[in-house]
């Protein structure tokens, strides 16, 4: 039986993780799962993330702004276009961040896992 078809799985919001640092992606995946989210996918590159959004889709996303020197701005634009809520995390300061991602929910690394979960719940509730 396909686990995706079970009623409990359908109720879980599917979150896309866009993070190029494997350790952080792993930790995110773990804490999101523990908090009752489903993982729509883990992407470490912009094109990979865009492909995942196009094919599998997601209900929400956590995006690292900088993917190995590459900006994640196209992913944010795509999510906005699809009205999918997301949270931006980054090692850059808030001022640096706001130039590229105005008005987005933003968390600075290192963040507390609890803060990220709350932020994600808030943006999902806005929908």
């Amino acid at each position, binding site marked *: 039986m396909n686990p995706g078809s079970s009623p409990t799985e359908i109720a879980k919001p599917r979150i896309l993780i866009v993070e190029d640092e494997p350790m*952080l992606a792993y*930790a995110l995946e773990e804490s999101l799962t523990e908090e009752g989210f489903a993982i729509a996918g883990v992407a470490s590159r912009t094109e990979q993330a865009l492909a995942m959004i196009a094919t599998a889709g997601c209900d929400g996303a956590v995006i690292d702004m900088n993917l190995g020197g590459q900006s994640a701005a196209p992913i944010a634009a795509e999510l906005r276009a699809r009205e999918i809520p997301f949270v931006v995390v980054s*090692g850059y300061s808030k001022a640096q961040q706001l130039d590229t991602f105005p008005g987005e929910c933003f968390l600075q690394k290192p963040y507390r896992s609890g803060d990220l979960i709350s932020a994600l719940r808030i943006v999902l509730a806005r929908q």
Partner: protein
Amino acid sequence: MTTHEQLASANLQLEAEVRELATRLREAEGAIGAIRRGEVDTLIFQGEAGPQLFTLAGRDAEANRFRGEILAQISDAVIVSNPDRLVTYLNTAAETLYGVPASDALGRHVSRLFKTQWDSPKSRSIAEAALLRLGAWRGELVQVTQDGRILNVESRVTMMREVAGIPGGALAVIRDVTERHRDDARVRVSEIRYRRLFEAAHDGVLLLDPATGRIIEANPFMTRMLNYPHEYLIGKELFEIGLLKDASASRDMFLKLRTESEVRYENLPLEGRDGKHQEVEVVANLYDEDGRSVIQCNIRDITVRKQAEEHVKLLMAEVNHRAKNLLAIVQVMAQQTAKLGDPKTFAVRLSERIAGLAAGQDLLVKSEWHGVEVSELIEAQLAHFRELIGSRILLDGMAVRLAPAAAQGIGMALHELSTNAAKYGALSQSTGEVIIRWRLSEDADPVFTMSWRERGGPLASRPQRTGFGQVVVGRMAAAAVNGAADIDFAKEGVSWSLSARARDVVASDGA
């Protein structure tokens, strides 16, 4: 006595008085003549208050002394010489200037005092001709004194006519201008020096007249900066050459200069004739130049500096980003070490993992994030077992430079593998060895493979539960190389392998 007798007596008396007066008149004429001839030293005047004495020679001497004192007081040297050029008089200033006392100079040839160094025979003959024809000459000379000093002097020579048998001669009044000449030379040298600075400066320099606001001088660098010819700049106002945006900005600057004497503009966009944009810094100063004010503007092209500042800003942002990322990793390491490990060894395990992470960072920073050689990475992560490398730890691979992300992921995996081997595996006893092998295939799309094989140690077995170390060597390493990683707990020892496309792992040239 008859009237006749009385008249005759009066007549006799008158005649005697006339004779007496005539005698006195002759005496007076004689005295005046003697005074005139200079034969009288002293006069006694019989006045009502008694005889008064006048010493004529004394008054003359007094006058002479007075004249002598005046000549001694003046700072110019005064020398009188006779037609034979013998010195008949010199004042104190002349004695001092030439360093010869009067006693030594009087009656001697003037060359006892100095010798004139004519710059050419022609100037000498011109001077001599002027003396003959006009009886006077003035001009600048170079004189060499008896003690060898070279003097620059201003000399005025007047010929004296022969008077009452006293032969004529020459009166020379000489002013020492050596110091002034030296100062002039210094000023000239300084002028040359500062002119050179102005000409060669790598800053634009403009001089402005504060009254009109117009440019009175511009150095060559300024003309190069703006690509305007020098003549074009002279007489222009600052806004006309694109330095300030308009006339009112110019006025503001002048007004500010009047109260603050220095105005600084950090970033002014400057547009030259060819439309080239430059960022410039302008420092304007109001100077007093011998009672007349002048504004000096130094204009520095800061385009390169601005670019460097931007670059530094970018680097700082990048450093900030990387530092935060690293802190986030450490945070996860701590959480995971606590969650999946033994609480008793938490502190030790976390410290070891942070040390492993730091060793990897050192290598990346050393290479300026260009990548790390596999062998270097192994040696850094297995630093504890350095003496075993080559004996119980065998490295087998070619030179491969790993990209930063791959180096970090593989580095952390190597750290976990070596820690595990030291605790439970091939490095936990006196026997046992580890073979680390890596390869790059020679396909069109080459594949990078790496393996860690332990043998000869205690029998291995899969741990009861999945620890964080297993996550690091497994899925995290795989994610870091965008490939696959697998760990196998075979009886003869732990075996780990990783494979990924070279383009995801190997540092690109020059990157």
